[in-house]
């Protein structure tokens, strides 16, 4: 979320002479595919992957755009296989819909690194690295629960502005949020689903504020749409509540640090996972393990923990904001 187009260098891992993993290995080709970016997070994913690949001299990076839906992505991937990459890093439109492709590639001997949207079939991937959507909801729920308990609010009114409702990840986030709140005996009073865009966030927030004349806390799933959400809150002159964001964009982290808006925290779902995916894919292709681990091969699953960014730790996270 910014007007600059290059990813922050901090979202990639630069050459580090201390780290044996960065030592040049055999030259490998990494194929990469992610859905067409229509908002900041996905754009950051692609940019990070590209930048991280660029940091390795032994990596050739072949990217194919995925088009607008799973069918288009399948088509793009078919052409990618023809290029015979050593490993494929893939952020599918939908893990279930592209499961068949994962199987096909693995059968063809090309290891598949699934980025973020899991394949249901364990045979369909070599490595899965993903954020924790459920955990993200849980983190937001706990932050809000604790804060309200601390304020001694008895039956708080909590709003939720979700992302695109037809995506499973949105469902997982909401489920985690609900479960975490339940541990405090709280429930969501109103839940609106936006479209991951600022204008839709503004609209849903405006309506949410109408429906709830008094609010104690709001969780907004996505910092990108959060720009619009904040605009709506400011326009309505509402400040009786606090808000938690999602994903961890640079603008959100700056806002939290500045502490001039209702945004008090954000729970991360960092696109930096794309950088990590490229690094691990390279190791897989080169047949190397992670130098800090005992195992000789890269593990099969990495799940990023969702971290909570608050005013206190904002400065340390700022470099990871996208």
């Amino acid at each position, binding site marked *: 979320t*910014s007007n600059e187009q290059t990813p922050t260098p901090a979202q990639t891992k630069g050459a580090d002479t201390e780290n044996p993993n960065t030592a040049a290995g055999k030259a490998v080709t990494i194929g990469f595919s992610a859905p067409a970016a229509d908002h900041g997070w*996905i754009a950051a994913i692609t940019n990070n992957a590209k930048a991280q690949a660029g940091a390795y001299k032994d990596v050739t990076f072949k990217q194919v755009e995925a088009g607008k839906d799973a069918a288009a992505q399948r088509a793009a991937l078919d052409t990618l296989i023809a290029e015979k990459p050593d490993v494929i890093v893939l952020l599918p439109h939908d893990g279930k819909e592209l499961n068949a492709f994962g199987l096909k590639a693995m059968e063809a001997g090309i290891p598949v690194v699934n980025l973020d949207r899991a394949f249901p079939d364990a045979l369909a991937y070599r490595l899965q690295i993903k954020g924790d959507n459920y955990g993200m909801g849980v983190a937001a729920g706990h932050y809000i629960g604790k804060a309200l308990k601390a304020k001694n609010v008895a039956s708080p009114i909590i709003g939720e502005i979700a992302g695109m409702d037809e995506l499973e990840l949105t469902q997982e986030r909401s489920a985690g949020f609900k479960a975490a709140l339940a541990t405090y005996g709280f429930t969501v009073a109103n839940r*609106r689903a936006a479209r991951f865009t*600022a204008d839709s966030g503004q609209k849903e927030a405006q309506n949410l504020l109408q429906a709830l*004349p008094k609010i104690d806390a709001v969780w907004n799933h996505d910092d990108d749409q959060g*720009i619009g959400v904040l605009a709506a809150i*400011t*326009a309505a002159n509402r400040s009786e509540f606090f808000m938690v964001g999602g994903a961890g964009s640079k603008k959100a982290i700056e806002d939290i640090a500045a502490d001039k808006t209702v945004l008090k925290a954000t729970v991360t779902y960092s696109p930096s996972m794309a950088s990590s995916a490229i690094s691990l894919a390279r190791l897989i292709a080169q047949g190397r393990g992670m130098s800090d681990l005992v195992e000789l091969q890269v593990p099969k699953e990495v799940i990023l923990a969702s971290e909570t960014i608050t005013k206190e730790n904002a400065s340390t996270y700022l470099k990871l904001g996208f």
Partner: protein
Amino acid sequence: MSVSSEQKVEQEVAGPAPHAPAVGGTSWWKDEAQEPLRRNLGLVGVLLALFAIGAYIRPDLYSDADWVVNNIMVILTQAAAIGVVTVGMTFVIIGGGIDLSVGALIALSGVWATTLATQSFGPVGMIFTAVAVGIGAGLVNGALIAYGRLVPFIATLAMLVAARGLAAQISGKQTQISADQFINSLATTRIGGIPLLVIILLVVAGLGWVLLNRTTFGRRTVAIGGNAEAARLAGINVRGHTMLLYALSGLCCGIAAIMLTSLATSSQAAAAELYELDAIAAAIIGGTLLSGGRGTIVGSLFGVIVFSAITNLFAIANLPTEVQNMVKGAIIVVAVLLQQVRFSSITQFARRHGLTRAKPQT
């Protein structure tokens, strides 16, 4: 037969011949002339019904007059940007065309107006850019249609795709934040308690009404949409006028882009998603004939407000998205059916079933 048959196809596929309104009424042309009014009354009825449902679900909120007034302002504010687009769309459709590119043009105008380079020229530069981009793209649409002889559907679909692509290219797929205080404040300014955006909508609609009903431009639009060949043989420059219609729609997109940018304090390539469908649907619900030659600005405005009120009510009733969608589909159907209720048909029904004994006279 030319237009009327098409009309039938659009309006009531398969229906029997179109007449059959009030019998025994005074001069029947009045009835025809009153049709827009009747339709609008139907939409007002829908609005009232939505209000009543809201009041039933959330008596606590609806009993608070301040809240109600404020909520109406919220509904209108949300209708503002799409409303402006719908005014342009109404002209295009009345003129026998269609513009699928409006959502994309809003995104393109908005993104172009919020690049760092443009923002450095200040609010005037931003507004100018948005409007110029909208008009420019509209002229391209118009040229493709009027001179390239592309079907409007295809020409503006191509523009939709291309403009979203260009917007993504310009923005680097990032959400571009508007740092301009003046632009951002448009959305929060109220004049006499009425949000500025709502005032803009009313002004645009007012100008649109005058343009459509009181000027030669509007008259030509109706003529071209009603029968392009007849208009041409009457000496009207059909091509030039078609260009202007799409430019007008583009202009409205430019204005809407500034409004949306102000609301969201940012702009992005994915903004104004599917506004084209909403605008077309609002115009049609408002009584504009998809095949051209007939339509009203007031009807379109009501159409937009109905859609906006539905969304608002969903939020207040806290419906989940999927239920929202099912109910929305049903409401659309009911709203349109409601507009078709005619007192005359009730009378006719009564007569046919011998409830009254009528004898229409000359």
